């Protein structure tokens, strides 16, 4: 397991190394190319800034007003009725809207039950296979002025739903209850 953590420290430097060496071999003007890309990268950040601000304001108001808690408390009985652990229900909803809030819930679960408990493991795997759907979708679609995501939302939510249940089932199989 230590090995995996060490390996994960290698991913970024090795990716950069491979690309730069490859570029050098192909006689790319490395620094020039880098600056060219970095400039477009910065431009990209500036371009998405208004979307980001809009997203943050909306999501933080949603949380601060207490609506997210209400929605969660409405969803929890439904999920427990389906056989889902009540302690994990808030995470399923919050994860869709805010990454930082989801991490907050995750660490709370870790503190309460321990990361190696059934709930801790399930929550960890849930975080791996789900995504802040609303955030990502807004960022990408709004960047090209697409406001009608069509089936994208449904497909993403369905995939998320499957992921949440898969996390629960897989944890049970692999680690036991």
């Amino acid at each position, binding site marked *: *397991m230590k090995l*995996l953590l060490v390996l*994960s420290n290698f*991913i970024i430097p090795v*990716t950069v190394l491979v*690309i730069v060496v*490859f570029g050098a071999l192909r006689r*790319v003007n490395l620094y020039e*190319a*880098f*600056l060219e*890309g*970095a400039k*477009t*990268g*910065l431009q990209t*950040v500036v371009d998405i800034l208004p979307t*980001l*601000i809009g997203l*943050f*304001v909306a999501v*933080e*108001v*949603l*949380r*601060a*007003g207490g*609506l997210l808690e*209400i929605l969660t408390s409405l969803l929890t009985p439904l999920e427990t009725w389906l056989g889902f652990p009540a302690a994990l229900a808030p995470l399923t909803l919050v994860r869709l809207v805010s990454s930082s809030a989801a991490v907050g819930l995750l660490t709370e679960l*870790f503190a309460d039950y*321990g*990361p190696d408990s059934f709930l*801790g*493991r399930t929550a960890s*795997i849930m975080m*791996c*296979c789900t*995504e802040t*759907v609303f955030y990502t*979708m*807004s960022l990408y*679609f*709004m*960047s*090209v002025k*697409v*406001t*009608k*995501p*069509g*089936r*994208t939302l449904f497909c*993403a939510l*369905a*995939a*998320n739903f*499957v*992921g949440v249940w*898969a*996390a629960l089932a897989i944890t049970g199989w692999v680690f036991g209850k």
Partner: protein
Amino acid sequence: MLNVIWGFFLIGGILTGAFLGRMDLVTNAVIDGGGNALELAFAMAGVVAAWAGVLRIAEKAGMIDLLSEKMGPFLDFLFPQVPRDHPARNYIAANFAANFLGLGWAATPAGLLAMKELAKLNRQGERASNAMCMFLVVNMSSLQLVTVNIIAYRAEYGSAAPAEIVGPGIAATLLTTVVGILLAKILEGREKP
């Protein structure tokens, strides 16, 4: 649709805040929200720019071409509407590869460029095309080799084996990706030529 959701967040949030007597918190949220977004953007500007720079080197060296060539059959299946020689394919390939390696910051610039190229092919106006839908569904199903930050949180809270969730995590993610792709394929709409 996105307009409606965004409006719902704000209107719903403020009204609930009024009912629950949490208007002070809502006030802070309105004031701080923009600032927090700026802070994030500021933090991410450096990383995104650096990765976009590295990405450009890879592009000029022909590595991205190579990557999208290797992913050819997969891309053909997912994006039949995108012509083989279209730059969108390269950026999509780079985005998927970066996401897979867990290089989120590198994935973002490639992803936004991919979206820009897909928008050029989109004849549905403000509606998402099949290719856009498929791209985001795969992107959001978060297929990733190692989720470094989750492992780090687990280690922080005293897990005996922080990385033990990697294998099961990959299995769960594979499943969500496959489900997402299948659903997006089944629900694919007819598009104006």
